């Protein structure tokens, strides 16, 4: 009897279509896990910091004599380089690398980003040449000038630095809730919008409504299967990062589930709105990117949006992806409960419903 039920058949077909597409499985399930492992490892290792300097001079200076004592001679692309390593067990070792170039080549190497600072000598004093707006170059200058002041002092971390290794303050802790939100958004935008537009462009939508099929069942099936896929993707990601990085959900599990559903509603509504009229997949791709790209860059998925100018932050906070990512972060890392995420949850629900209603009003079935 179930086999004769159209909603059941629509769901089954939608499911097969989704899992038979290897790209969907890769981008939806494998890719988020890979990127979180990759970024997590890259940012959690206590790695060495390396600064690259170019020495643009010929006559021997104070720096040259220091290098002959502390520097380790090596070669890079056939050129002679000196590496001066300062060990530090707390902040990680710092490597100062020096290479000799004539002035014009030194400028080229700076432009290519191969080096941070150019050094010259003026009457026995070291001169630093770098872009003052370039933060790594500034840091390189600060570090080197301090080192040259007291080269014999084997630097360990000052006593006042107390490394924080609490749960929830590492970069990976910041990243995972953001990736979860981003994965949810992109899987819905592509999974729902693109499916509907493709269906319309191939006249399949028109063929289906020429039968006694209930239109609502068609949309329910797409949304249902997508939500289930999102749930699987999220659970897998949460499991993997717990296993590798020991990330735990510190806040309310119930609030997380409701926020997750609110996110699904918000981006499902948005997807239906985006795909309500066009039958060109090119237009659809453009529309989806138009919505997705700004949010990916602005909503603080990979790096905090607090680095953006103050005036823009109010606007950024209104983006649905910001609300979702910040809400996830609050629950994961700050132990937030129902009350703290009530506003974003409600806002996402409302946004989704409004988009859905407007989308349905404009929806072109053929």
């Amino acid at each position, binding site marked *: 009897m179930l086999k004769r039920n159209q909603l059941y*058949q629509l769901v*089954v077909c939608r499911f097969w279509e989704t899992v*038979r597409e290897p790209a969907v499985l890769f981008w939806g399930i494998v890719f988020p896990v890979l990127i979180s492992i990759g970024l997590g490892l890259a940012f959690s290792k206590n790695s060495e910091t390396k600064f690259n300097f170019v020495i643009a001079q010929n006559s021997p200076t104070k720096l040259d004599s220091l290098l002959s004592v502390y520097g380790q001679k090596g070669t890079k692309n056939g050129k002679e380089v000196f590496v001066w390593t300062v060990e530090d067990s707390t902040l990680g070792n710092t490597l100062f690398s020096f290479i000799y170039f004539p002035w014009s080549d030194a400028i080229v190497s700076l432009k290519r980003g191969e080096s941070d600072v150019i050094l010259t000598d003026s009457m026995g004093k070291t001169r630093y040449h770098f872009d003052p707006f370039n933060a790594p170059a500034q840091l390189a200058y600060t570090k080197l000038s301090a080192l040259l002041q007291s080269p014999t002092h084997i630097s360990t971390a000052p006593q006042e630095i107390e490394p924080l290794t609490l749960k929830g303050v590492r970069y990976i802790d910041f990243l995972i809730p953001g990736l979860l939100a981003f994965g949810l958004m992109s899987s819905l935008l592509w999974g729902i919008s693109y499916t509907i537009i493709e269906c319309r462009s191939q*006249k*399949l939508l*028109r*063929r289906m409504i*020429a039968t*006694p099929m209930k239109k609502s069942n068609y949309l329910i099936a797409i949304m249902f299967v997508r939500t289930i896929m999102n749930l699987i993707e999220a659970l897998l990601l949460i499991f993997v990062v717990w296993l590798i990085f020991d990330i735990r959900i510190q806040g309310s599990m119930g609030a997380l589930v409701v926020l997750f559903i609110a996110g699904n509603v918000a981006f499902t509504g948005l997807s239906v709105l985006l795909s309500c009229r066009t039958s060109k997949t090119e237009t659809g791709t453009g529309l989806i990117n138009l919505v997705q790209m700004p949010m990916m860059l602005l909503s603080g998925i990979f790096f905090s949006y607090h680095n953006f100018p103050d005036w823009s932050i109010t606007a950024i906070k209104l983006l649905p992806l910001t609300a979702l990512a910040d809400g996830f972060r609050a629950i994961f890392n700050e132990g937030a409960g129902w009350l703290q995420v009530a506003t974003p949850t409600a806002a996402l629900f409302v946004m989704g419903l409004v988009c859905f209603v407007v989308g349905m009003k404009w929806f072109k079935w053929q």
Partner: protein
Amino acid sequence: MFEIEVKNIFKAFKTVQAVSGISLSVKKGEFVALLGPNGAGKTTLVEMMEGLRKPDSGQILIQGKNWKKDENELRQIIGLSLQETRFPERLKVEEVIRLFASFYKLGHERVTQVMGLVGLEEKRKALTQNLSGGQRQRLALSVALLNDPQILFLDEPTTGLDPHSRYDLWNILKELKSRGNTTLLLTTHYMEEAQSLCDHIVIIDEGKIIKEGQLNDLLHPDAPNLDELFIQLTGKRLTDA
């Protein structure tokens, strides 16, 4: 009473008058061809009869009922295939037919039956993306036949097919005709298709009917076939080839 009655239909798109004042009637069990070159307005006309487009003016009655009031009822009794329907590429033949069967609350027996009818049993596990053009058209036909429609609309069912596949499809339709339960309206720009399948032929050009009648009445020594007749009527050929 006629199965299909079309009364003085007009339909314009932004820059084109697609259908300008067409009237026609189809009797129960009759096989009718709408014959005309590409762009004659055949698809627009047939899609209005299928309730997929609204005419600007005029009236369309299917078994005396109209699309506005009786859409649900009419959807149950008609079957159709659109020009170039593409089914979901990653579904198997059987899954597509089963999906459409569920829209009519039909079960496994009917799915197997129509697969047999169009000769797709061996392909039932094949993904639709791996089907040939002829197999795709047969799949579209099987979906159109699922509900054992009283009225069947086929829009260019054999366009783009090789002669062999076309012949196969004609045989399925002839078999349907011999059973006499179905009224068929098909559009085509192949005169052979109209001649071999249909009792009544309606020749359309530029949104108007320029001639209609039984095949024997239309042909005469000066116009021994429909292609010649069309050239006499319009000065153009039916197909570009």
